[in-house]
């Protein structure tokens, strides 16, 4: 049995060299350090955000001098005092929190059946269709989608045209609170579905059959069986939608017409309309604090749900 004498492949030589280098560089006890070294670049990259936060903190403690338009040299808490006492900021914060809550509930209401149908259907084409209908808007970006709704809901848009057919006067559908909420819901829908789908996949179909065979109609089995089992998905989806809506900028700006400012818009205004960076930074830090508090509370009480990375089990 004679094998042809094949030359040692080049790729093997390179691999041997790589192994040799690795063995020389890697300390023999270094095996335990491996994961930390692998995590280091990511930790550094996210560290940029931490540096950013420190910068915001520093800026937030300075006040704007309106005769020279320069930031003050010393630190002061004046910005924070103004932020918590000003009626306008309170109004904006309340509007954003309420809006985020409403958007979360409505989004989950639509995302759940969407994810359910997508996961449970046996029709591969339907599943693909639903996935594409989900991903296409997700990949298109906020600005373009808001722009599309401006066209549809404008005074001369399709909706008002159709209402005109029935004899209704054109209604102002845009530049109000419901328009912004609607824009947010349709923007958050893909996020909600993506967070719910893995959790729903984990629920075996037989469980629903079992519930039915035990006498539950579909509504009861939904409330008592599926919903509790989908909890990690609901938490992940709810959290993502809530924080994203609370801090959204484009939808309130484009669909709100300047009268429906959310917190992000107020912060932007401080930086770019009144040039008071200190105030804007203080508001930004307060927003980060509120957001982190929300997330932290949910995480500790419920766990990270489908938002978890790594080895946490569902």
């Amino acid at each position, binding site marked *: 049995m004679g094998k042809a004498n094949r030359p040692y492949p080049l790729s093997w030589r390179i*691999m041997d060299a*790589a192994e040799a280098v*690795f063995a020389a560089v890697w300390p023999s006890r270094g095996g335990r350090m491996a*994961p*930390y070294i*692998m*995590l280091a*670049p*990511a*930790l550094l990259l996210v560290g*940029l*955000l*931490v540096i*950013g*936060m420190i*910068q*915001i903190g520093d*800026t937030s403690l300075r006040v704007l001098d309106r005769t020279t338009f320069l930031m003050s040299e010393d630190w002061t808490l004046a910005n924070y005092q103004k932020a918590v006492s000003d009626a306008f900021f309170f109004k904006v914060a309340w509007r954003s929190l309420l809006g985020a809550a409403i958007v979360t509930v409505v989004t989950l209401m*639509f995302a759940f*059946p*969407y994810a*359910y149908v997508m996961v449970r259907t046996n029709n591969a084409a339907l599943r693909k269709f639903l996935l594409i*209908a*989900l*991903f296409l808007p997700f*990949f298109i*970006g906020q*600005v*373009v*989608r808001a*722009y*599309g709704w401006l*066209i*549809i809901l404008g005074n001369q848009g*399709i909706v008002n045209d159709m209402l005109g057919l029935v004899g209704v006067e054109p209604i102002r559908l845009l530049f109000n609170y419901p328009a912004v909420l609607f824009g947010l*819901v349709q923007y958050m*829908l893909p996020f909600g579905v993506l967070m719910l*789908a*893995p*959790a729903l*996949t984990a629920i075996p179909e037989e469980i*629903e059959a079992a519930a*039915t065979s035990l006498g539950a*109609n*579909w509504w009861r089995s939904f409330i008592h069986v599926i919903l509790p089992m989908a909890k990690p998905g609901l938490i992940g989806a709810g959290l993502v939608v809530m924080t994203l809506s*609370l*801090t959204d900028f*484009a939808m309130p700006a484009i669909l709100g017409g300047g009268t429906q400012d959310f917190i*992000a818009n107020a*912060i*932007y205004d401080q*930086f770019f309309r009144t040039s008071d960076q200190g105030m*804007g930074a203080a508001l*930004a830090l307060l*927003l*980060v604090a509120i957001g982190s508090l929300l997330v932290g509370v949910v995480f500790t009480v419920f766990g990270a749900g489908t*938002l978890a*990375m*790594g*080895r946490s089990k569902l």
Partner: protein
Amino acid sequence: MIQPRSKSVVLWCLVAIAVVALSAPTIVVLGASFTSGNIIAFPPEGFSLKWYAKIFESDELRQAFVRSLWVATVCTVVSLPVGTLAGIALSKFQIRFERSIQIYLLLPFTIPLIGSGIGLMLAFGKAGIIGQLWPVGIAAAVINLPFMIWAVTASAASLDPDLEFAAANCGAGPVQTFFSVTLPAVTPGMITGSLLMFILALNEFLVSLLLVDARIVTLPVQIYNSIRSIITPDLAAVSVVFIASAALAITVLDRLVGLDIFLKSK
């Protein structure tokens, strides 16, 4: 399992509304771009490709698009190795402070986008690197890193540690094991992640708004600035460019990995 009538009706109603809400802006923008009139309207009056001709002639738009592509490339190139290594580390190993590290790596999600954007604007400003394009790519990578890590960990969950022992058993050194066993197993996650990062960076709006200026404006910011000016159909034509890239990305994603990957439980 045969579903009861009422359940199907309710489900399908809700799903139909959702699909309409999701797709309507896309279709409208697509349609309005073909109008032969001079104002934005849907349904379009007449059919004409003149607005596409206009945007191809526009140097500004072309340059803005090229800059967006560059930002997306920088973002993907940076986040791919960083996110992959982090994802593998989180899935395979038992790490001390695991909970804290997870929360730390979720910072780009927990810190609101406006906060991250302004923080990076101030930090980059202090470092004096605002006014160039590559910091925008880095910013996009930082903001969206959790997506990359999430994608990699999702596919790394299927990585069986025994496979690596088997490879070592057959004589493979650690480097070879990594490249022949570990990496291929997370490749679906890497592909999904990179496509996600690329498209997200291409569309990145708020952070770009804060970090770019007239010399380095990217396409989403250019569109936003133009929307706040007179709205003409060439904006719709430009938006179709985004729709086309999105469609392309989805097709590639589906061919290489299959969209079903997002349905899998972790």
